[in-house]
């Protein structure tokens, strides 16, 4: 938390200081009020006092109240400012940082967790700052100041107030000790409920096929019962808090009056009146003391949650960026459109096992190189090394004869046209989706967008849409089909005019016919571009210039389709397992 607060800028610290001063003023004014209150009380009480005196004192008190209101408003304004700006800046830092993370790091955090960290966790921190800046400063000041004000009035009263504070704090402490660990259990049980429900939902067919509805229900009921009983315990324990709080406060007032009655009774005549005034003042100061301790307790209850959020944010901010940017931002060799792997091995930083082992090959300009293998064989990982989503653990990946690590990433990316496995569609128009990003060659014209969509076999469906190229895509592209999304994301790569295309299993959602037509058109359109294709379907890669067969991260075959059918057992098996499908739809 403290570490995160270091992100506050000078201006914000200055504002916080002003806040502090204003809060001191506010506390001073607020503590001044009981004086006037007692003054008024005494005036009202004693005979012969002048109305003007009462009004006078009332005006002072209102003045104090107004002053405190004004300073509270200013503090509120400043706090709103600080907290908003602070969370804006932290969010920005986090966003930038996450942009710099390597894919493996993002996988480690998981995208959904990163989203929560950038949104929810920051909101938590923001809430805490708002509360903290006001209460955390105000409560102790009020408490200490109020205590000094009442300390020398009467020890009996002070003692009773101290007892009240101790009782309150111990009730809260006991509650925290009892309930807090159970809160964690409740959290776990909620996860369990989720888990059991998710199981039932994902396995709905199996559940029904096995007539296991009752089984699932019983399982759910078990967790449900446990959750309910734990939650009941927690909430019932907390139900003690509020009545106790009020009870302590009321009893305190009552005790102060009762003790006051005795004190007044035994006092000298001269002291009686001032004692009475003191009593009224004391009871209101005592309330202030109690309230400020309550506020402190509240903050300490909030703190752990904010702490967790802060920790989660810091975790991301502290992650070291493993992908360091290179320096080369212009071509230094004559090679164009080549990709070469030299003895490349890859494993995740903390993993024992290699995902890729000693891969070497070279794709020449205009060639199509395909990668195939069973799931988990490392195909995607392999081509993800080219745009530096990961860096090779050993060996080198060269693009145009230069190690990718030496390129400035922006320059490297301008050479590439990457199409991911899962089509990414932004919440924008079709045109802007295709013309996305910056390819270092100036703006992508509408002409080019249209041509790219046409090559990607998307012209027909795009032009059928109401606003054609200006149609808005929903987030995640939910308003078009999977195949259409994939065609748009392929068009996006085409519009960039890259030297090297990377297709990470990007044809899987297309039907066989579209798949083959698209690839033919693409070949025609981009004669000189190199293509790296990962695919599951044999049909997609059959005609590639080179096919690299992966099995458990190792290259077990490299060559053309026909050769591999004869020489590579793994390839042959994959091919045979798919031919049924292929042959029915594929005209080739």
């Amino acid at each position, binding site marked *: 938390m403290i570490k995160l607060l270091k992100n506050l800028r000078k201006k914000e610290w200055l504002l916080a200081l002003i806040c502090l001063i204003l809060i001191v003023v506010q506390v001073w004014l607020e503590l001044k009020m009981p004086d006037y209150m007692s003054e008024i009380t005494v005036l009202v009480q004693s005979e*012969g006092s002048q109305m003007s005196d009462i009004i006078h004192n009332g005006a002072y008190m209102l003045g104090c109240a107004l002053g405190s209101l004004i300073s509270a408003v200013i503090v509120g304004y400043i*706090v709103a400012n600080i907290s908003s700006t602070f969370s804006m800046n932290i*969010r920005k830092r986090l966003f930038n940082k996450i942009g710099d993370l390597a894919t493996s790091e993002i996988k480690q955090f998981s995208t959904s967790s990163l989203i929560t960290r950038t949104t929810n966790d920051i909101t938590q921190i923001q809430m805490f700052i708002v509360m903290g800046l006001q209460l955390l400063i105000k409560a102790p000041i009020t408490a200490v100041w109020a205590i000094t004000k009442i300390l020398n009035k009467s020890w009996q009263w002070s003692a009773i107030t101290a007892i009240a504070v101790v009782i309150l704090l111990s009730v809260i402490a006991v509650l925290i000790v009892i309930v807090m660990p159970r809160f964690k259990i409740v959290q776990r049980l909620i996860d369990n409920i989720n888990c059991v429900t998710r199981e039932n939902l994902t396995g709905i067919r199996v559940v029904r096929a096995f007539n296991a509805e009752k089984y699932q229900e019983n399982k759910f009921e078990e967790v449900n019962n446990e959750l309910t009983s734990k939650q009941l315990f927690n909430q*019932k324990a907390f139900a003690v808090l509020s009545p106790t709080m009020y009870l302590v406060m009321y009893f305190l007032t009552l005790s102060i009056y009762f003790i006051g009655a005795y004190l007044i009774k035994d006092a000298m005549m001269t002291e*009686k*009146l001032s004692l009475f005034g003191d009593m009224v003042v004391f009871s209101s100061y005592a309330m202030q003391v109690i309230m400020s301790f309550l506020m402190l307790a509240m903050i300490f209850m909030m703190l752990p949650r904010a702490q967790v959020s802060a920790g989660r944010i810091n975790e991301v901010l502290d992650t070291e960026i493993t992908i360091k940017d290179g320096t080369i931002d212009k071509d230094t060799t004559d090679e164009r459109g080549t990709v070469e792997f030299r003895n490349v091995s890859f494993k995740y930083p903390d993993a024992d096992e290699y995902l890729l082992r000693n891969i070497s090959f070279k794709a020449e300009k205009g060639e199509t190189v395909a990668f195939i293998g069973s799931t988990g064989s490392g195909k995607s990982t392999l081509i993800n090394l080219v745009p530096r989503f990961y860096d090779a653990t050993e060996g080198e990946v060269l693009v145009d004869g230069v190690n990718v690590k030496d390129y400035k990433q922006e320059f490297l990316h301008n050479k590439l046209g990457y199409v991911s496995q899962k089509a990414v569609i932004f919440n924008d128009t079709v045109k802007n989706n295709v013309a996305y990003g910056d390819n270092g060659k100036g703006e992508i014209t509408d002409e080019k967008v249209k041509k790219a969509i046409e090559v990607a076999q998307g012209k027909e469906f795009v032009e059928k849409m109401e606003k054609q190229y200006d149609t808005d895509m929903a987030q995640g592209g939910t308003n078009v089909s999977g195949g259409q999304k994939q065609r748009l994301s392929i068009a996006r790569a085409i519009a960039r005019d890259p030297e090297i295309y990377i297709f990470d299993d990007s044809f899987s959602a297309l039907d066989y016919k579209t798949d083959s037509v698209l690839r033919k058109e693409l070949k025609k359109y981009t004669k000189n571009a190199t293509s790296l294709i990962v695919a599951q379907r044999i049909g997609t890669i059959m005609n590639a210039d080179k096919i690299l067969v992966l099995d458990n991260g190792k290259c077990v075959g490299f060559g053309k389709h026909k050769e591999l059918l004869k020489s590579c057992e793994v390839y042959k098996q994959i091919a045979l397992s798919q031919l049924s499908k292929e042959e029915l739809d594929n005209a080739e």
Partner: protein
Amino acid sequence: MPRRGRRMGPGAGPAPAEKAKDFKGAIKRLFKELKNFRILIYIALILAIAGSILSIIAPSRLSQITDKISEGLVVNRENLEKITTNITSSLGEITAGMQTSDLSNMDISQIPDEIKNSAFKEFEIDGTIISVNDQIEFLDKMSGIGEDMTPEEIYSKIDEMPESIQTVVKPFMDMDAITKIVVFLVCLYLCSALFTFIQSICMTDVANKFAKSLRSRISVKINKLPLRYFDKHQAGDILSRVTNDVDTIAQTMNQSLGTLVSSTTLFLGTIIMMFYTNWIMALTAIGASLIGFILMFVILGKSQKYFAQRQEELGNLNGHIEEIYSGLNVVKVYNGRKQANEKFDILNEKECNANRKSQFLSGLMQPIMNFIGNFGYVAVCIVGALLTMNDIISFGVIVAFITYVRLFTSPLSQIAQAMNSLQSTAAAGERVFEFIDEEEISDEKAVTKRLDKSKVKGEIEFQNVVFQYDNNDKPTINNFSAIAKPGQKVAIVGPTGAGKTTMVNLLMKFYDINSGDIKIDGVSTKELTRENVHELFTMVLQDTWLFNGTVKENIIYNGENIDDAKVEEICKVVGLHHFIKTLPHGYDSIISDNDSVSAGQRQLLTIARGMTQDAPFLILDEATSNVDTRTEEIVQRAMDKLTEGKTSFIIAHRLSTIKNADLILVMKDGNIIEQGNHDELIEKNGAYAELYNSQFEL
């Protein structure tokens, strides 16, 4: 006292609740559903009201204490007068001859002691004897008292009086009465606290048990919905109803119902009490607060707007973040980060501004409330003082009103907040009830026939089966007819989308067919319960579904009478035994979602699970597609064991696995375009032959 519910913290603010589509309807429904908890709720509400009433009564009693204490400040005038009259009369005797009747102007010291002693007589007031000397001393001190003296000076004179006079004249503090009131108040406060506590306990009980019953109902409901429901709805949506929505209902209900009732009682009660005590003061208090409330509602209205705006901006920002994070690879490679950052900055700043405004406005609430309180205090004091001076009210009334003002201001904001959370309750309730009210699978009570698992021969006949998914415009299965004889191995081949998996769904009665019939041993599945049909089939699917639990639990699943030996035997057959033995706890090892159990092993586990069922029919839906080639061999062997002697349906892409099938159905576009065994189909030289031969052409 019963002022529950969260205080409006400076940061919390009234976030706009998610609005229900039909607020009234949702609340009505909620109360209907709460019927079983009626008694507890009534108790809670009555206690809330009682608690509020007690906390209204308390201030008037507290004011009595103040009254009593302040009575103890005033000199006992009656006794003072008595002394004065006594002394004056004595003096009168002396001065009869001196012609001065003015006591204070007389120089007492000039009177000789003898005269005094003979003139003054001892007298008794309230059992205290005032001696002659004391009377003389009194006279002595009193002589210095003039009209222009302040009360303090008079009081200090009294402090110098002789003891006997002090005892008599000193203010009388009625400790007995005070103690009585204190005891009464202690009881009152205790009762009130107890009421509040019991009320919270009741509501907590109701809320949690209600939540539990809702969760159970959702859980049961899940298994009663037709499968087509899950085609249209995401698991995440249902999950959030089970947890988030139910939680919201429980929490907000717990908070809002009690608060609403007690706050309203408190509010109305305070108004009544105020008018009952003194109408002028009541008007003052209400008037003073009214100005503040108007201000507050203006701000509240404004801040609602900004809150909505903030919520919207936050939504936009989060949307953007989600979009960029999930497409980060594309963003990077397309050098779209600059573009993303620019948009992020704009959205971030917009959010910041909206947040600042809403935060500020909502932060105003608390200080303004405080100010209203203080303003009310001063107003009450001034008006009260005026009235006290004119002897219309006692001082205690002012003290009572000071509390009334406080009691009066807090419930209004609480009512506003409770209404807000009630909105959330309604919205969440609507979503939960919507799910619970969802149409269930058709009732099967009328079904009378039943096939005994052990007596089924194993014949299945499809007669002109037609089936169409709800959201499709043309049938997926079109006029499908085929017969599978007992013990036959039937393979279904065809391209994706040909309707192979749909066939399985129909066989399992997951979906009802539109027309035609599927008969098992000549009995239409329409005449059998789903449970009965499921009992007859063992099904192994492409997606390997395992749950959090031990290996053994996963294999036995819902099965009955399956002992450890049987599990072990099956695992040996499937070739899992060795693997399971290598796990840390053998058969009792926990399998969780992302474990070291590979896809192939998961598949084998599901096959083992299938084998425990020992059903006469078997369905294997691409059960080997997720498995690499080496594992597939093992799975294949296991499956062959599974299919022995059973009528089985196999869907697979690999033609080699189905070559030995007794019947091969070649499907395309929901129709069987060919059927027969391998040799017949090859001879026919149709689609299947083409398919099969193409393997060797390449």
